[in-house]
Structures are given as C-alpha cells and as structure tokens.
C-alpha cells in the first residue's frame, strides 16, 4: 500500500503549488465530499452483499462501541499525562502570550 502514500504525497505537492487558486480548493472540497459519499455507498453495497456482516451486525455494533471506548479512553489519558508532564509550565497566561492576546491581570 506504498502507492497510497505516494499518491497522497504527489497530491500535497500539487496542492501546495496551486495554493493561490482559492476557487479550485472550494471545488476540490466538494469533489472530496462527493467521492466520500460514493465510496461509503459502495462500501455499504459490499456490506449488504456480505452475509457474514449482515447476520452479525448487532455483534459488530457492540465491538465498535468497545473499541471506541478503548481508543478514546486511552487517548484522553495519554494526552492528559503528556500535558501534565511536558506543559506544566504552560499556564493559560503564557498561552495567551504566545497567541499575542491581551492578558487580563487579576486584582
């Protein structure tokens, strides 16, 4: 599946070269949405034709919930940990400073 990465890379370079053409990107956003709808429809068709999936859709749903809980829970814990460990000096005030915003002083 290396071709996927190559295709994406080529797309990114072309996109970067054409970055000034704003109208083009509005069109591309719409093309992407249309292609996604089409692909999901096709994916649905192949699912509908697949008897294993159709017969076990309720089990598949439960599995999806379990995996979502794992991925979301893990990412939240890991991210909070990273924030505490490596950004402990980054208070809200300093974020405001980095963003160049006015800092409201207490008192």
């Amino acid at each position, binding site marked *: 599946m290396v071709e996927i990465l190559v295709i994406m890379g*080529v797309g990114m370079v072309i996109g970067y070269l054409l970055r000034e053409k704003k109208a083009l990107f509005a069109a591309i956003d719409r093309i992407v949405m249309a292609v996604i709808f089409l692909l999901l429809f096709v994916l649905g068709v192949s*699912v509908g034709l*697949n008897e294993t999936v159709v017969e076990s859709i309720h089990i598949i749903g439960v599995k999806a919930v379990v995996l979502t809980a*794992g991925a979301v829970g893990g990412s939240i814990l890991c991210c909070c940990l*990273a924030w505490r460990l490596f*950004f402990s000096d980054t208070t809200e005030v300093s974020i405001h400073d980095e963003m160049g915003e006015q800092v409201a002083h207490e008192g």
Partner: protein
Amino acid sequence: MKGSLTILCCFIIGVMTGLFVKLPSFATESDLTLWVLYALIFFVGIGIGGDTTTFAVLKKSNLRIFLIPAAVIVGSLAGAASVSIFLSDISVKDAMAIGSGLGYYSLSSIYITEMRGEVLGTIALLSNIMREIFTLLAAPLLVTWFGRTAPIASAGATAMDTTLPIITINSGKEFSIIALFSGVVLTIAVPILVTFILT
C-alpha cells in the same frame, strides 16, 4: 455532525441496495473501489497541500506541540489494543488498525475494507463515527472530568474540522490552535498508520 449523518445515510442506502437490489456483476466484482480510493487520496492530498493555514500553524508552533498528537496516537493504539482482550475474534493488530482511524472514519474504513474485508471495515466505520459523535456530545463533560486537552484527544483527526468549533467553545480559544494542529497532524498520520499496521 450533519456530515457524519449524511455519510451514515449513504452507507445505509448502500447496504439496502446490496441486500435488496440485483446488481450487475461489473459493479460487484471489479477493482473500481480501489481506483476511486486512489482518486480520493489524491484530492485529499491536494486539499492539505493547498491549505495555507495548515502551514502557518505548523510554522508557528514549536516542536513540543507534536507531543499532543503523538500522545493521542499512542493512547488510541494502546487503548484499542488493550480492550481487544474482551473481543475474542479481533486480533490486537486489527484492533490497533481500527484505533488508528483516529475518528477519520471515511478514509480508515475504506482502507481497512480493502485490506481486511467488510467485517473489519464496518467495525472501523462505526467505531470512528462514534468517536466523532461522542466528542461532539461529551466535550463539556470531558473538560470537567479530564481537563481541557481531553476533547482534543477524543476528537482525534476531526479536531481540525468537524469538532473544532465544539472544542473551541469548551476548552477555550487558546486551545483551538492546539486542536487544529493536532487534527492536521493526525489527519496526515491516519493513512500512514493504517498502512503500516496492516502490512
């Protein structure tokens, strides 16, 4: 939210078509989806490459900010892998592939279907749509319980578009730039991660 519901509708209409409509063989037996997937990847690449705000955000932030999307990736993969103990017929590797969708359901489910078949692809689709919808609904609770980076972690790749408004409202404007950055990095990471985990 509206987008993910439309996606879900397209998928359900597709399922109904597959179940009840007699389709010609060229529609069911060709490599058409693979080529459409290539086209999609190409256009997604153009979109990312041409997005000037993406590069502005990347340039402005220091290296440390990469720790946030990195933590989201590590946490998602480890979390999905560890709950796979409860799912007897899903291997750790497949669970990690689904976790590495990071909420980018359209791309990850299509990839996983191509590489592992419809069963796993459907689980990936549902799981990653749930991730987006959960983030949209639970963002205020996540901030209260786990702090202001929690919705950014939960959002995964969607933090750059669909869930960005809700993160900005609940975590605060100063976190929106981190959310955007994390979402951009994770969006680029999804196809790479899924490919590496499944090959």
